[in-house]
């Protein structure tokens, strides 16, 4: 009987379980879960703080999920090594799990730069896991002043989540703008303005020089008093298991479109991987939930002897703060890279579509996000823009811009 | 009160018939008896008989049985007849005075032969000429009425119960190879002698039980061809239809039956014999207006035979029985048993299925 080991218990692991079970209902599945929680919706931790969800509703799957999927979950265990020779996964308690195929779904870990004096800060937190969140929740009070290092997705979602629970929030970032990984300057400005209107303070183009207990001294010289510190500078893919066994690793574990690493029978999925980004044609770490699930699922199918390829991953993000939504996808090629841009902009809304070589490669939408998936599908499915009425499509995302035949297939058949 | 011819009167009826396939002669007595058990099917407002083979000595002459309202009418009519026919015999039809039959008109018979010169000048064949003349007398000559006009056959009818009518006409004195009988139950008429049945034209005679719902469709169609439905009775129109189909169109008895009691389209479509199917399609398409709907059972008498026919849904009773060379037909089995207690093979013919009985060739 086949034995599948999945290291990690996040969404990629669930995808992997469901992929395996699609092919193999008999084989044994063992999930190694470092966290002592059943799989939960990790991106929901900020919503938890905000009160929009609770621990029960945050469960990604039903209570009897593992049982129904015939999975054993080893909670609180950590895989320390994958032994290729013996085809076993070694756990931190010394036990060894033989595998037919293993999936590394270890996600990522927070990256904490070596700030001087950080050890003098009493209340400092990462914002990655449920445990981080629960700890943070108990640490804050209505009078707390919170300093968040990092104006990326994690930092800002944390800020939004804490806003109603604390007295003051300051977010600082070395970058010149918020959400620098997904937004260009103009777009970031709109978001920043909106966040500021909702009471978030920013210190951009700046970083902490040194911490002294409850005070941070910035490189600009500014001093900030705080009583809770959240470190959200960034994350690093958790690649060590594969790297240690000699698998090829870059910023993430390198995988092909079958989610195979360079080591036979070792698969990887989720935030720990580096795979194709078809919008740019390059390898990238695409640490986003939809990709994690789909990679996991693809890995699972292949691990169990099926054949599946996840051939059209792209970066994409839907994120909202205080009611203002932004959606981004793909790659934004500038003029210098042969790209062109279509833009609609008003005070609160912005649309930027990035086109290169007759294809849509990326977009940024702020404020108006209706039917954005139609744009996403243009990128993912590499639809030539000359096959559709892009002139009307760029103004309004609607299937009306497709040819009647295409539309007939989309709306008139089983898809 | 209006009588037949002025208004259409529905009626219920009793019918009976007998024929000898060997052509053996029978007196009218048995057919009179057959009507007795069916007394309640009549109401005393009409009864009648037709006998075939009864005038062997005048078999080449048309026997015109006529009612006249008065002597003068008869005189006038005779003048009219003499212009057209050679009258070989003219006599009163013998009757017997009985209390149950009253108010009789003058009842006369002529044995005639059309004048060849008249036929030639009118460019008509003999039968057509006789038929037209009968039609003319019946429509134009007030008080005169031809109620039988065939050769070697005759009808005898009156207002009264049929068994009394038979006695009245002394039918025991006639010998025929086939007989039909009719007792009538009209619903709203005082009864008129001419309205009693059988109805005849030339050799055709019809006794009928039923009330056909297609009457006016049939009548208005058949009147296009020179027939005048003066009595407004089913029997009359059916007689004309049979005359038209058989004599004028040359159809066989079976084909004529397929016109007036045509099979349902679905039945025709289900036929496996292509020729048969084609024939039925053809006949029904060609003569739609001669389809007879509504209940009827008829016995159609002709020279040398009888045909019994029910409407295609068989909405009226009619049974057939046999014994030796004889075939019996009646509304009720009791009537057959009266004529022949040992009748065999009694069966009820299906709707639309004609029963044709012929006297064997040369039997008379």
């Amino acid at each position: 009987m086949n034995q599948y080991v999945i290291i990690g218990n996040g969404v990629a692991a669930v995808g992997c379980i469901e992929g395996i079970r699609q092919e193999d209902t008999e084989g044994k599945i063992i999930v190694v879960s470092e966290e002592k929680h059943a799989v939960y919706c990790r991106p929901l931790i900020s919503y938890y703080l905000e009160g929009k969800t609770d621990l029960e509703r945050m469960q990604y799957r039903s209570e009897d999920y593992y049982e129904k999927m015939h999975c054993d979950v080893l909670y609180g265990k950590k895989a320390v090594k994958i032994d290729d020779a013996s085809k076993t996964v070694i756990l931190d308690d010394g036990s060894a799990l033989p595998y037919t195929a293993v999936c590394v779904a270890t996600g990522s870990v927070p990256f904490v730069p070596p700030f001087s004096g950080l050890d003098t800060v009493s209340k400092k937190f990462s914002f990655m896991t449920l445990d981080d969140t629960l700890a943070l929740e108990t640490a804050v009070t209505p009078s707390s002043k919170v300093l968040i290092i990092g104006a990326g997705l994690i930092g800002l979602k944390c800020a939004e989540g804490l806003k109603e629970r604390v007295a003051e929030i300051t977010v600082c970032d070395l970058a010149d703008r918020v959400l620098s990984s997904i937004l260009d300057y103009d777009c970031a400005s709109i978001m920043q303005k909106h966040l500021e209107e909702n009471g978030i303070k920013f210190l951009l183009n700046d970083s902490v020089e040194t911490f002294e207990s409850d005070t941070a001294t910035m490189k600009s010289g500014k001093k900030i008093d705080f009583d809770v510190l959240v470190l959200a500078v960034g994350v690093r893919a958790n690649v060590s298991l594969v790297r240690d066994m000699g698998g090829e690793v870059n910023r993430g574990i390198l995988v092909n479109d079958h989610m195979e690493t360079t080591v036979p029978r070792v698969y990887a999925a989720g935030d720990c991987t580096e795979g194709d980004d078809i919008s740019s044609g390059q390898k990238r770490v695409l640490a986003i939930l939809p990709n994690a699930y789909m990679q996991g699922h693809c890995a699972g199918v292949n691990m169990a002897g099926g054949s599946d390829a996840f051939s059209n991953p792209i970066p994409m993000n839907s994120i909202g703060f205080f009611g203002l939504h932004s959606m981004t996808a793909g790659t934004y090629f500038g003029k210098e890279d042969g790209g062109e841009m279509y833009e609609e902009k008003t005070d609160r809304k912005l649309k930027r579509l990035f086109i290169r070589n007759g294809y849509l490669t990326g977009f940024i939408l702020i404020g108006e996000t209706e039917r954005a998936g139609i744009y996403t599908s243009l990128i993912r499915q590499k639809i030539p823009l000359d096959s559709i009425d892009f002139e009307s499509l760029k103004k309004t995302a609607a299937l009306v811009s497709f040819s009647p035949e295409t539309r007939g297939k989309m709306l008139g058949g089983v898809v | 009160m209006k009588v037949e011819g002025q208004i259409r009167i529905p009626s219920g009826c009793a019918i009976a018939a007998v024929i000898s396939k060997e052509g053996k002669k029978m007196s009218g007595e048995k057919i009179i008896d057959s009507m007795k058990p069916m007394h309640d099917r009549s109401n005393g407002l009409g009864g009648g008989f037709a006998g075939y083979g009864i005038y062997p000595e005048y078999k080449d002459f048309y026997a015109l049985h006529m009612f006249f309202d008065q002597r003068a009418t008869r005189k006038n009519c005779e003048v009219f007849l003499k212009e057209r026919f050679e009258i070989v015999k003219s006599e009163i039809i013998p009757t017997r005075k009985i209390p149950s039959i009253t108010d009789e008109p003058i009842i006369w018979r002529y044995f005639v032969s059309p004048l060849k010169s008249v036929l030639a000048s009118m460019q008509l064949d003999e039968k057509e000429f006789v038929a037209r003349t009968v039609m003319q007398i019946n429509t134009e000559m007030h008080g005169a009425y031809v109620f039988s006009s065939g050769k070697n056959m005759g009808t005898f009818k009156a207002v009264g119960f049929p068994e009394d009518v038979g006695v009245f006409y002394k039918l025991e004195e006639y010998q025929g190879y086939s007989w039909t009988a009719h007792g009538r139950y009209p619903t709203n008429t005082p009864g008129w002698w001419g309205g009693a049945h059988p109805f005849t034209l030339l050799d055709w005679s019809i006794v009928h039980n039923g009330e056909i719902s297609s009457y006016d469709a049939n009548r208005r169609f058949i009147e296009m061809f020179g027939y005048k439905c003066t009595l407004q009775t089913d029997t009359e129109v059916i007689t004309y239809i049979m005359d038209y189909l058989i004599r004028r169109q040359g159809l066989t008895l079976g084909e004529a039956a397929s016109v007036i009691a045509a099979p349902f389209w679905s039945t025709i479509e289900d036929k496996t014999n292509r020729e048969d199917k084609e024939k039925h399609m053809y006949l029904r398409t060609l003569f739609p207006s001669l389809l007879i709907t509504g209940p009827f059972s008829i016995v159609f008498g002709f020279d040398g035979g009888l045909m019994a026919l029910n409407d295609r849904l068989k909405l009226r009773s009619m049974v057939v029985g046999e014994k030796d060379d004889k075939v019996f037909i009646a509304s009720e089995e009791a009537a057959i048993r009266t004529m022949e207690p040992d009748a065999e093979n009694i069966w009820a013919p299906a709707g639309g299925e004609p029963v044709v009985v012929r006297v064997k060739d040369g039997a008379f």
Partner: protein
Amino acid sequence: MKRVYVNEKWCLGCHLCEYNCAFANSGMQDMATALKGKPIYPRIHVEENDTISYAVSCRHCTDPICVKSCIAGALSQEDGVIRVDPEKCVGCLTCVLVCPYGALAPSESGVMQKCELCLQNSCGEPACVKGCPNRAIVYEER
């Protein structure tokens, strides 16, 4: 499985489907009470230009990317029907970002809603189909 299909040849662009949808999912007895004087949030929408129009609602894909992408585990597929659990949804709109048909949109409260074929409401059969005056929307097996 029976799905809702649209035939744009017969769509009149009357938008009745949108109103019938909004009413069917309102839980109210009377359309005027349910819809009068407020914006409607139908689960089907009519797209149109000068020459054509047609309605779009969830295709109930056999391999639904929205379900895979949902960060809250709020979308699920059972017997082919894709449903949203409004209790779990946090309104992140990731499903909007990935749906190639533009078939999802938030409700008045911001939580997602989508066509669930009227299987859960009192209509019992898709209200858009029932109310389409020109049979441009049909509910059938294909």
